[in-house]
């Protein structure tokens, strides 16, 4: 199989705090990889390093064959990203924002693609509204559309579902599943375990910056354990260690 993300000993310090501590992992093409972990465990920092937005203090990572430290911009050309805080520039409208992303990413036929997303995520009525006046969920829709506008082969998405209502969550989960079936790869961070249980093929659990478990989801479920129990155990064991 084909490895799309390869991290070796990735570490990131903020002052004395090791937000991510010697993490190695690899993600195969066609998987829906869930990075799970409690608040502050380092998920966002991990995604930021893998997309070249934050430099690792040590360690190496390649994404689609690109060294993210040496060539962060090329890495971001190839992937789609949903950052943790949904913040499109405030004085563009939703449709202008997608045009802007299309120009930066040099996407052909962006108009129709954007239109498709407005309809698919059901916010065509908001496309002429300034981003700063959009509701949180609508901004999240926009960030979702932005990440997939260029049909990347890999998308790294940080808590993509958190602001969506149940209907939208279902739509998006289905989209992600299909996307992987069509050969794409998703690297997703979340602490909504039901979502992970439903859609992920592989999971890694991050705790205090370290990987405490990693492997196919099926392995965990095969032990007749619920993911949430497994998660709580993995995280708790470490706390008492």
């Amino acid at each position, binding site marked *: 199989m084909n490895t799309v993300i390869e991290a070796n000993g990735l570490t990131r310090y903020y002052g004395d705090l090791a937000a991510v501590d010697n993490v190695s992992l690899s993600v195969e093409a066609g998987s829906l990889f869930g990075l799970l972990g409690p608040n502050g465990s380092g998920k966002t920092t991990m995604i930021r390093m893998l*997309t070249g*937005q*934050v*430099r690792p203090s040590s360690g190496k990572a390649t994404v689609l064959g690109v060294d993210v430290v040496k060539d*962060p*911009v*090329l890495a*971001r*050309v190839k992937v789609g*990203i949903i*950052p943790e*805080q949904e*913040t*499109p*520039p*405030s*004085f*563009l*409208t939703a*449709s*202008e924002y997608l*045009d*802007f*992303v299309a*120009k*930066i*990413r040099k996407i052909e036929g962006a108009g129709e693609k954007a239109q498709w997303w407005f309809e698919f995520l059901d916010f065509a009525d908001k496309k*002429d*509204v*300034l981003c700063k*006046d959009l509701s949180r969920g609508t901004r999240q829709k926009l960030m979702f559309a932005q990440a997939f506008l260029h049909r990347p082969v890999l998308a790294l998405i940080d808590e993509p579902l958190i602001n969506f209502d149940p209907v939208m969550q279902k739509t998006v989960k289905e989209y992600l599943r299909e996307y992987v079936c069509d050969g794409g790869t998703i690297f997703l961070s979340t602490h909504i375990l039901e979502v992970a249980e439903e859609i992920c093929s592989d999971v890694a659990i991050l705790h205090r910056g370290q990987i405490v478990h990693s492997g196919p989801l099926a392995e965990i479920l095969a032990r007749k354990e619920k993911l949430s129990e497994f998660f709580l155990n993995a995280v708790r064991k470490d706390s008492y260690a």
Partner: protein
Amino acid sequence: MPELFVAMFREEWRMHSTIFGSLGFALFPVLVSAITFMGSAMIPYLEAVIPGGTLSLVVHLQFLLLGVMVGGFGLLGQEVMNRRFGQASLLAYSSRSLPISDRRIFTTFVIKDTVYYFLLWVLPFIAGVTFGIPLSGLSLSFVGLITVTLTLSFLFGLSIVFLLSMLYAKSPALLALVLSGVILIAAVIVWLQIAGMVYLFPPYALYRDFSPLVFLYSVLAIAILFSVSISGMTLSLSGKERHYPNRYGEIAGWLGWLPAAPLVAKDILDLWRSGAFVGQVLFSFLLPLAVIWVSLSVLSAVLPDVQILFSFAAVAGVIAATMYTWLTEFDSVGTYTFLPLGTPDLIKSKFTSFSVLQVIPVLTMAGTAILSGYAMEAFPAVILAVSVSFYACSVMIYLTGLWPAVMVYNARVLLSSLLMIGPVLLVFIWLSFLDSLYACSAVLLALPTYLLVRIAFRKWASWEKVFF
């Protein structure tokens, strides 16, 4: 709300000290003091050439100018807090979670900013003058007097612009109406000789005639301007939903020939729709230039008019360079750095947007030259102003990358920029004094400008954003 004030004050301090260390930030006022201290030595010489009273008026006008430059709180309202601290600020949003009103938070923010500017600029200046007494031969009581009058000049400038920007944000027509009303009343008062012109600038009137009554007049004027501005502010973090037709593609198309056109188009829409564009041009460019023009005109006894024009051009260039901060301060770059853009792309885009904005100093300078009867000198004056502006902008880019408004409060950055810009300015002003046409030699600044921007690409490429 002292707790909120203290918390905001600390937040601002931490922001600066995490970026360049507490020492770099703490040394900033020390440096301002040191410069003033050394400047004190020149006072006896200046007084010998500049007629009495003129020098003090110029200094008071400079403090008015400082207030004018930082007082545009009304323009963006709460958006200012949002963009200064980014999403990270919990305090700016505490009205959502704590029982504190929006107005209270905004008022605290404005007061905190005022105190900060006071501590960073006004107080160190006065301290420098005080330490410089042995050099300048000024009396202690005189220093006491200007401590009061300069502080009031600063506050007066700040509250005037706060009021004007608040009115402008409400409606430009309202601003025009109020402004013409005030000018009319002032004209009548001066014309009927009810009071002298000097009373239009109360802190300076106080300097001329230090009496309890004039003091009260100054303080009241500031208090009224300030409270009217605060209470007039329209505050709401969630206004009505604003709709606009899609203009982005069109604008990006027109600008297609420029480097980084997609980002420049975004900047233009951002400046225009936020209302910051016209507002900034009025309050951060034209108004300061008017104050500078008045300051220089006061010197007409010592400088021929044409030299005033060229000095003005050079200074206008420096003020025009601050347009770079309009583009960076009010843009949260975090909102698109996850796209495939590197810091060099962002700097390139800001520099291009800056170049587009240079139309404004070109027009202003040409207009000033023609209106003051020096149509023949308009061309060299424009060249001088714009070359200086580009050069000063490149120095800013080199020294502060994308974060000029924050990084300037680093002692080293301030010192370097003074050393890099000051002598250059003097050389070209001097050349223009020799012959107006020599001012055109300022185009030579294009070379260092180009080089500094290139070096900045490399210098800032690996710099990681540690804030926002």
